[in-house]
């Protein structure tokens, strides 16, 4: 097993799936010779040629729309949108077509397509380069919304996304792209879409996070253990939608307390759905209000102030304590 960054792990997933299946086509702006602005598609055009790796003109609606046509034909396009802040140009293609073709054709046409996009803050980027708007896609029936939290699960989830018979929006935290390395096995590894995972067991409180927020959440759990003697169970959502709340429910029925953490802005964000589900499934077990630690209801500030916007270990710890002391 090699130690890899998330960029390398995603690159491996793409490469291996392209090797196995000639229906897999990579497309987007600068994904060819340039290897993508984050180098995620590096080397693919050299290995697979221009027929499998398409540098497209600068037009996100057409990237998604063309992918819809390719998927209708039976191919498995994997589109890169350079930053998730430019995926809105594709909104109508995804909402009106990718999410609907299977149903509209009663199963004749499946939309096995993936739209990858870097999301989130923390890399001193320009405006529109740091948003976390996964709730938009999560609220769109017919789409799946996946966010990995590290190299190994990024690879295994992307493989699943590429093979999935339905359209998957795949957000990659650019803050994680090169933040750390993990062992990633060369042999095939697939993680099912739609299943959260317990990454740290605990009995006192449930911390629910995903993507770039998983690491500070785990740190917060350690701190709660060390300083407060609290056993925090940490759940990594991995799939935002379709959201399976079984594991969350079990955990919260056990702990009676929960904090949901995300970078996305608070109101109408992903955390709200998790709270609502837990109220529906674990109300009588709850010993305190569920806390949300999130971005504020602002457009994420430009980078001189973004560190205050993004949930910190400290904010997570405080929210957990509040829940416990409630």
């Amino acid at each position, binding site marked *: 097993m090699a130690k890899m960054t998330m960029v390398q792990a995603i690159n491996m997933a793409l490469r291996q799936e392209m090797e196995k299946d000639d229906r897999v086509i990579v497309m987007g702006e600068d994904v060819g010779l340039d290897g993508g602005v984050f180098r995620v598609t590096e080397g693919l055009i050299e290995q697979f040629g221009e*027929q499998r790796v398409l540098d497209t003109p600068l037009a996100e609606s*057409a990237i998604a729309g063309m992918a*819809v046509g390719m998927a209708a034909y039976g191919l498995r396009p994997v589109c890169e949108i350079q930053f998730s802040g430019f995926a809105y140009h594709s909104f109508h293609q995804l909402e009106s077509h990718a999410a609907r073709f*299977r*149903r509209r054709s*009663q199963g*004749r046409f499946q939309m096995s397509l993936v739209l990858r996009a870097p999301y989130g803050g923390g890399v001193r980027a320009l405006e529109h380069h740091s948003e976390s708007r996964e709730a938009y896609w999560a609220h769109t029936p017919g789409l799946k919304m996946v966010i990995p939290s590290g190299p190994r699960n990024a690879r295994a989830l992307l493989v699943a996304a590429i093979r999935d*018979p339905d359209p998957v929006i795949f957000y990659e935290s650019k803050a994680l792209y090169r933040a750390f390395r993990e062992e990633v096995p060369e042999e095939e590894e697939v993680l099912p879409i739609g299943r959260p995972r317990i990454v740290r067991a605990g009995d006192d409180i449930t911390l629910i996070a995903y993507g770039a927020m998983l690491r500070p959440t785990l740190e917060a759990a350690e701190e709660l253990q060390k300083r407060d003697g609290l056993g925090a169970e940490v759940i990594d959502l991995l799939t935002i939608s*379709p959201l*399976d709340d079984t594991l969350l429910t079990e955990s919260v029925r056990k702990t009676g307390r929960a904090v949901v953490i995300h970078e996305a802005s608070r109101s109408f964000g992903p955390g709200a759905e998790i709270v609502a589900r837990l109220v529906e499934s674990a109300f009588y077990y709850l010993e305190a209000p569920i806390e949300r630690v999130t971005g504020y209801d602002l457009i994420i500030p430009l980078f001189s102030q973004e560190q205050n916007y993004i949930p910190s270990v400290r904010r997570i710890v405080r929210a957990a304590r509040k829940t416990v002391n409630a």
Partner: protein
Amino acid sequence: MPRNTIEISETIEHLTILNENDELDASLEPDIAADELRRLYRCMLLARRFDERLLDLQRQGRIGTFPPIQGQEAAHLGAVAPLRPSDWMVPSFREMAAELWRGRSLENIIIANNGFEQAGAMHADSRNLPMAVPVASQIPHAVGLAWAAKYRQTDDVVMTFFGDGATSEGDFHEGLNFAAVFQVPVIFVCQNNHWAISVPLKRQTRSGTLVQKAVAYGMPGIQVDGNDLLAVYVAAREAIARARAGDGPTLIECVTYRVMMHTTADDPKRYRTDEEVQQWRRRDPLPRFERYLIGKGVLTPDVIGSLKAEIAQEIQVAVARAEEQMPVLRAQSLSVFDHLYADLPPYLKAQKQMLAEELSLSDEESANG
């Protein structure tokens, strides 16, 4: 170094073969087999009669809102006729005649116009995409299909339809640009029927023609009299041949007219004059083609008469069959949970269960109440 006019190298042409005064340019007349001509005529007539019948049904509340196609039959059929069955058709929402030609059934259209999801079902090997309601949004799909057909080294081509209004949307622009850059086998058929609901062509764009927009993409373009089936046919056949040969996309502008309302929810009297409509009614493609075929000896008044009877019968049967099926389809309330995803995720199973309970409770209540 002085000021120069830039030469535009794209070929942008106009073509009419059989004009509204029944004048034929015999040098351009396509050599279409008599049988094929009769099939075309029959389909044109069927589409016309069925369109009229749909309007009756809508007025009687037996179907929902729909967009009549009257007057555009030649521009539909001339375009699709030279396609092979293995070629793809990517319609907008006003190409009923083309859909009939490509195998869609009358029943299916009636059922779809009654808001049944199930009408979307199609053969597993169908090469017609379903209707696309968001204007111009289907154009990039055609490009993707064409890219795939080329990638798979077939010589299949893709034909997509859209209106004059659609040319204003970003998707038109992005789609045509992608098609040209990737040189994929796609034919863009613009049905310029002069109106986008209440917006006339000259307020849709300031360009003198729609076909000249091909210049922006380095693509050949041809404008045809859209009410002249022969011209549409020839332009389409050329474009298809070019695409099949690997020489890339073409933009075809069919100049035609929407003689009816936009949809049955629309009242065109609010925004256009009757004279304009009457003028275009005189250019009706159906009698023009009919006279041509009679003149050519391909049709006789007798044949036409029996065709008409046949078609009336066919429509009647279709309406009856559709109306028989709909109560059955309506009862399949839980089917709305089908086909959203390939598999139903757990919470959707629970929601399906909720709906099932809801429905059985409602049945009980109505039984009790």
